[in-house]
């Protein structure tokens, strides 16, 4: 098992490019599997296994994939909320997030990078009134002067469609949609630059989903946020994103601008995934690509390309050698042997 840990830092460091607020390079996050009486580490769940992407300032990147593919772990690992990373780089405004001392991280960087969690029911402390949930960090980080504090909280709340009198209420008195608004207001109140939206709408019903998505869009226009929007709902991602990454078993198999990904997907997995989007037209025939089998365990992923066990276009090389991410066309990256041979030969 030690062999795995030796190779986690085999990557070429990236140079900081000012265009990108966030640069993620070969990011890895493994969770140890402990077993036996003395809790020896017997293996690793490779939740995130070498993820590379960049997000431009003020844009939204969608991250899609089936459940268990590591989307949420990517979001949390970027924000340093899941313990130490296993390997790779996370550059936020050019600074390696994991090299920031704890104190400075809490004081300066937590406010700039925020997260909205999937479940608005469990992510709000049941013991605090809403005003305190939103305002606590504002006060702790002195985001606004004391005299403006009350007005500021009111403003943030009304930005998110909440009434100021909601301040005194407790989370359990709100509906799901309202609670997600509270979560958004909480993140927003810290004047962040970058927000990870970890499936912010999947716990809500469809009509509320639209409201929340539009709210996020409006806020982005108003304040110029950058979003990493994690979701398994392709139509939501298509609506909100500028660029899209598709994840499978801890890897990003394909990523590029939304148009490229949705109009001309390259990777067999992306094609299969998109063929599953329902079309609201009963007369139209769809060519659904049905994937055989189920997702392999991230504790013992297949050799070579991780997708080869389910890929319709599997070749010999796929079983032996893992493909690397290549730029198939400008701004469109794919991680598949089908395109590697044509475009970059050597790889």
């Amino acid at each position, binding site marked *: 098992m030690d062999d795995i840990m030796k190779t986690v830092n085999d990557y070429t460091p990236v140079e900081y490019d000012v265009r990108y607020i966030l640069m993620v390079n070969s990011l890895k996050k493994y969770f140890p599997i402990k077993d036996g009486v003395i809790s020896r580490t017997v293996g690793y769940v490779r939740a995130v296994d070498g993820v590379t992407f960049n997000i431009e300032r003020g844009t939204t990147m969608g991250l899609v994939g089936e459940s268990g593919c590591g989307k949420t772990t990517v979001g949390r690992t970027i924000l340093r*909320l899941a313990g130490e990373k296993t390997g790779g780089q996370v550059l936020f405004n050019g600074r390696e997030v994991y090299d920031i001392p704890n104190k400075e991280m809490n004081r300066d960087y*937590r406010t700039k990078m925020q997260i909205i969690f999937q479940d608005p029911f469990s992510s709000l402390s049941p013991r605090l009134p809403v005003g305190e949930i939103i305002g606590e960090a504002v006060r702790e980080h002195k985001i606004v002067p004391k005299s403006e504090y009350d007005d500021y909280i009111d403003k943030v709340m009304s930005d998110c469609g909440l009434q100021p009198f909601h301040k005194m209420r407790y989370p359990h008195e709100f509906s799901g949609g309202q609670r997600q608004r509270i979560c958004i207001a909480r993140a927003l109140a810290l004047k962040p630059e970058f927000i990870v939206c970890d499936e912010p709408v999947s716990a809500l019903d469809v009509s509320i989903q639209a409201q929340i998505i539009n709210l996020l869009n409006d806020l982005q226009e108003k304040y110029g946020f950058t979003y990493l929007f994690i979701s398994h709902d392709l139509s939501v991602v298509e609506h909100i994103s500028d660029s899209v990454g598709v994840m499978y078993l801890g890897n990003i198999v394909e990523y590029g601008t939304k148009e490229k990904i949705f109009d001309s997907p390259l990777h067999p997995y992306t094609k299969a995934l998109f063929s599953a989007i329902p079309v609201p037209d009963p007369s139209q025939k769809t060519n659904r690509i049905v994937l055989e089998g189920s997702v392999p365990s991230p504790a013992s992923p297949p050799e070579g390309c991780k997708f080869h066990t389910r890929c319709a276009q599997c070749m010999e090389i796929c079983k032996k050698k893992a493909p690397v991410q290549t730029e198939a066309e400008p701004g469109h990256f794919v991680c598949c042997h089908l395109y590697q041979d044509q475009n970059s030969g050597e790889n």
Partner: protein
Amino acid sequence: MRTYIIKRLLISVVILFFTGLIIYGLMRSLPTSYIESMAMTKSMAPGSKSYDEWMEQLTAMYHMDVGILPGYIQWIGEVFRGNFGDSWKWSVPVLEKFNDSVWISFTMGLIAFVIEMLIAIPLGVLAATKQYSKTDYTISVAALAGISLPTFFFASLLKLLFSVKLGWFDLYGLVGRDYEQLSQTGKILDQAKHLVLPIVTLVVVSMGSLMRYTRTNMLEVLNSDYIRTARAKGLSERRVIFHHAFRNTLIPIVTIVGGSLPGLFAGALITETLFAIPGIGYVSYQSMVSGDIPFSMFYLVFMAVLTLLGNLLSDILYAVVDPRVRVA
């Protein structure tokens, strides 16, 4: 809230009636009968009446010549007149005997309880925040050792070490030999000194479970999503632990604490016996084995009242600390 409390109190009365009936029935059905043994002793005396004649006379004298249910009703009737009767074994009014013995147990229990909370809760929090670390394992092992140690064994160890070997404390008793000659403060200090070992015993054997309980609950809270939210806000670890996590851990702890209040009046039978402290635990035990119905009835029903009140109290406290349970 008021309606709720009144409703709970009314239900408690019903529960209390039946609890009392069960206790009374049990006491009457015990194989050790105070009256029987008394009749036996009296009939042994030279030139005395026969055992049967004594039995008849004594049974009538102690009003035990009726069935369980009428006897119980009779007892309740007396209670409503504020009369708990005289203790058979101690030959003084029940209330007087109770009053004589309960306060020493209560003081001892309360001090032990406060110390227990002061040690167990912070240790539990510490163990949870450093889960699976050496600190955590050390605390957990110590807690388990405390839970597993039999009181009599641990108390004997303490006595061996601190009384016999080191000679710091007296072996037993509540006051020293020269108690009467001491000044007022000296008397208090003397009693306090005699309470040290019993209290240490009580704290060590009961601390473990509260600590484990705090740890478990704290861990549950620490793994919840809103703690991740608090971390994501960039709050200091201190604030995350104490302001967010600990507040939520308080709910189950309050329930436990409310539930253990009656225990303060129940006394600590084994500890009191080992250290020869005339507390309520020891006294009630002796009353029960000798079949002293008036005293046992009073003591056990009093415990039932306290348990019911303790439950009600913890439910009310629950509402105080948890906004979700507050009844509008």
